[in-house]
């Protein structure tokens, strides 16, 4: 690399301490113009803190940020945007009650008329082939659609450095391919990209360079194109990565968890109607539901977990019980546990301690409360057991759920449900925003639970996850479920096309597959 080209951004000895933790310890690396640079590390390795400093949300305690050869002080995000830094957040900074258009307008500096902005947005949507209605209210959108808002918001600013924090976790393979195409095109125009992801094979496909962080320190640099996902994961962890151990041939029992013609009208203007959903999960089986966000996954989870009871009662059955009309507590007592997609506020109460959070779902099955009295000791013991069994990084059962990082909280919630030893477990996005080590632990726990005879339903947009984990899967699209596919026989292309909505028509699927390959 020649010396006369100045790096787009160079970090020199960036240090940032929080009470009790050194989040970044003398971190130095540089990103060249047009380079796609990966930032790797487990949850809590300090990646988020680092990019927050580049984006001006926090200031480093020590060290310099050098932009195009000039040392800069990034006082706030506005200054960062002015410099040419765009950012797509992992935890979206969106305003629920506002429209997509208003959300994007808030991310723009300087005034621009709504109609002009809308035209620009439609332009970007068209260029990158993204689907998004500017007039929808954000609270009615799925996680995937919300992320698209962030991406569009960043692209509108025509940035010189785009920071992407976990951008592909909610996209279909085709969408990921499109996004990568977009990013490559963007990088050819000279825009640098700082890319954070846990999906290491994506990093291998996309990135030109990688910096690996562990415990706030740079522990290595590599060229991802010359590494394997496993080798990179091991650099991140600083040890060996455990593979999912799954018996090669497994015996399945009878159908335990059955949806038989589950039909639900869409709620409000934006809800997706579920249309004649049929599947059966056998004892010992992990059944996957793939699909792009916003195709009825949320509605399906609510209907199956009992948050939204429905009729007729036998549209959902657990063993011989007709449960569709039951509420969540009734279903829990029959042994049906659920982990929703949204951790904060849905899966856990962030302002409650971990102990209190166990009582919320495990009070009956784990006998944490009886006759209206909470058994604090039993709950604390149970919370401690979850923390130990699932290696949740926290100061103890008394710490607030909100103080845990996303991946750790997910491990805790998964552990809370799995340790109740449910007959049926429904999980939505089990490893969203979770690092490779933690994801492997969660996957292994699911496999072990299935081997004990539980029926497990996994709703995920991460196809690799479903393919690694599931025995059979089906694809949900616009509220309808495709035929059930055996995982061994399904190809990524086929599933990806079903996600795009070619329903059960093998000819159309084949044609579209060819069309995709022709390009």
């Amino acid at each position, binding site marked *: 690399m020649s010396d006369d080209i100045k790096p787009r951004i160079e970090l020199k000895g960036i240090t940032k301490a*929080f009470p009790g933790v050194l989040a970044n310890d003398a971190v130095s690396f540089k990103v060249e113009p047009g380079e796609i640079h990966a930032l790797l590390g487990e949850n809590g390795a300090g990646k988020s*803190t680092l990019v*927050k400093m580049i984006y*001006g*949300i*926090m200031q480093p305690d020590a060290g310099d940020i050098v932009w195009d050869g000039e040392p800069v002080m990034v006082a*706030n*995000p*506005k200054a*960062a*945007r002015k410099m040419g830094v765009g950012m797509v*957040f992992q935890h*979206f*900074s*969106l*305003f*629920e*009650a*506002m429209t997509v258009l*208003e959300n994007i*307008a*808030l*991310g723009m500096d300087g*005034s621009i008329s709504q109609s002009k902005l809308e035209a620009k947005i439609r332009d970007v949507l068209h260029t990158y082939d993204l689907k998004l209605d500017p007039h929808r209210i954000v609270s009615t959108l799925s996680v995937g659609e919300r992320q698209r808002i962030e991406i569009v918001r960043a692209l509108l600013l025509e940035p010189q450095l785009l920071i992407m924090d976990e951008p592909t976790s909610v996209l279909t393979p085709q969408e990921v391919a499109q996004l990568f195409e977009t990013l490559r095109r963007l990088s050819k125009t000279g825009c640098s990209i700082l890319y954070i992801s846990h999906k290491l094979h994506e990093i291998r496909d996309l990135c030109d360079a990688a910096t690996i962080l562990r415990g706030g320190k740079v522990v290595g640099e590599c060229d991802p194109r010359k590494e394997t996902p496993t080798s990179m994961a091991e650099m991140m962890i600083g040890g060996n990565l455990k593979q999912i151990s799954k018996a090669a041939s497994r015996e399945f029992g009878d159908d335990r968890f059955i949806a038989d013609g589950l039909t639900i009208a869409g709620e*409000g203007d934006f809800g997706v109607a579920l249309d004649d959903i049929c599947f059966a999960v056998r004892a010992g089986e992990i059944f996957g539901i793939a699909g792009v966000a916003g195709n009825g996954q949320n509605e399906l989870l609510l209907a199956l977990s009992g948050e939204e009871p429905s009729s007729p009662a036998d549209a959902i059955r657990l063993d011989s019980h007709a449960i569709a009309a039951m509420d969540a507590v009734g279903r829990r007592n029959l042994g049906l546990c659920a982990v929703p997609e949204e951790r904060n506020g849905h899966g856990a109460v962030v302002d409650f301690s971990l102990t209190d959070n166990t009582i919320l779902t495990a009070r009956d099955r784990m006998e944490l409360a009886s006759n209206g009295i909470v058994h604090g000791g039993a709950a604390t013991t149970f919370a401690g057991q979850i923390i130990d069994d699932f290696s949740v990084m926290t100061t103890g059962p008394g710490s607030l759920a909100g103080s845990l990082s996303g991946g750790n909280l997910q491990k805790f919630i998964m552990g809370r449900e799995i340790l109740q030893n449910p007959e049926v477990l429904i999980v939505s996005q089990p490893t969203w925003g979770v690092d490779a080590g933690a994801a492997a632990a969660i996957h292994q726990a699911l496999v072990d639970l299935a081997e004990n005879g539980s029926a497990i339903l996994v709703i995920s947009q991460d196809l690799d996850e479903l393919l690694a984990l599931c025995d059979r899967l089906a694809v949900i699209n616009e509220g309808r479920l495709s035929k059930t596919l055996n995982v061994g026989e399904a190809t990524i292309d086929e599933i990806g096309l079903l996600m795009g909505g070619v329903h059960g028509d093998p000819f159309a699927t084949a044609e579209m597959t060819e069309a995709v390959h022709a390009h």
Partner: protein
Amino acid sequence: MTDSLLIPIIMTIVGAATPILLAALGELVVEKSGVLNLGLEGMMLIGAVTGFAVTATTGYAPLGVVAAMIAAAASAGLFGFLTLTLTANQVATGLALTIFGIGLSALAGENYVGQTVDVFGSVFPAALAEHPVLRVIFGYSPLVYVSLLLVAAVSWFLRKSRAGLILRAVGESDLSAHSIGYSVIGVRYMAVLFGGAMAGIAGCFYSLVLTPMWAEQLTAGRGWIALALVVFAGWRPMRLLLGAYLFGAVMTLELHAKAAGFSLVAPEFLAAMPYLATIAVLAIISARKAGKSLAPACLGKPFKPSS
């Protein structure tokens, strides 16, 4: 004959509605930014006594109004310092502000009890303002017309202007607004000061227009009605206008019923009407699930940037 009864009734309704409209409009902006200021009653009293004192001293009512706005905004600034800078609990601080306002205004107004001042002149020629029929349109204090203009202005500001969008964003998700790079505390200070100034105008509407004189606790709990009105209106300025006049009508009903010797129900019941109406309407609003609430998601939550 009907005119001679109807026109005074309408004019009383407008008089009763205007101050709660002004105060509620300020509070609406405050709440849209995510701050709950329960000190409305106290700020109104501070405005009322300041406006009266300055007008009585200088003899010039507009100066009194400006002074009332400044004094009430200053008390709001104190509230802002406690709740925004020191992140004190908003509910407790707001209640304290009301008690503080009641006491301070009583002390400051001691020497003014029983005095009178020159009331506001009309902005319209006497031929219109004192015309037996047309006075129903032209015969009000300038502050009435100002309040109507302010409703339109606030409505436009919140829906159409960029600053209004930012204000709503701050009230909707303070952390998101912070991460995009808006000054949450700065926006909230501006909103709280605006709310204080509006409460100041509302207060001096009592002491300079309606009575016009000063007495302890002159506003008689109207600040609480204004607070309820914001919820009643679902945080929409135009509905606030409707609600204020509805409440004005209910309050006037009581006066006129008493005057007319209406004795079918106890007068206490009539006096309770505005409050009963609030409860009934709130219940109806929340029962209608489809009508989405515009309640700011961060209302009353102190903003503490974690990192």
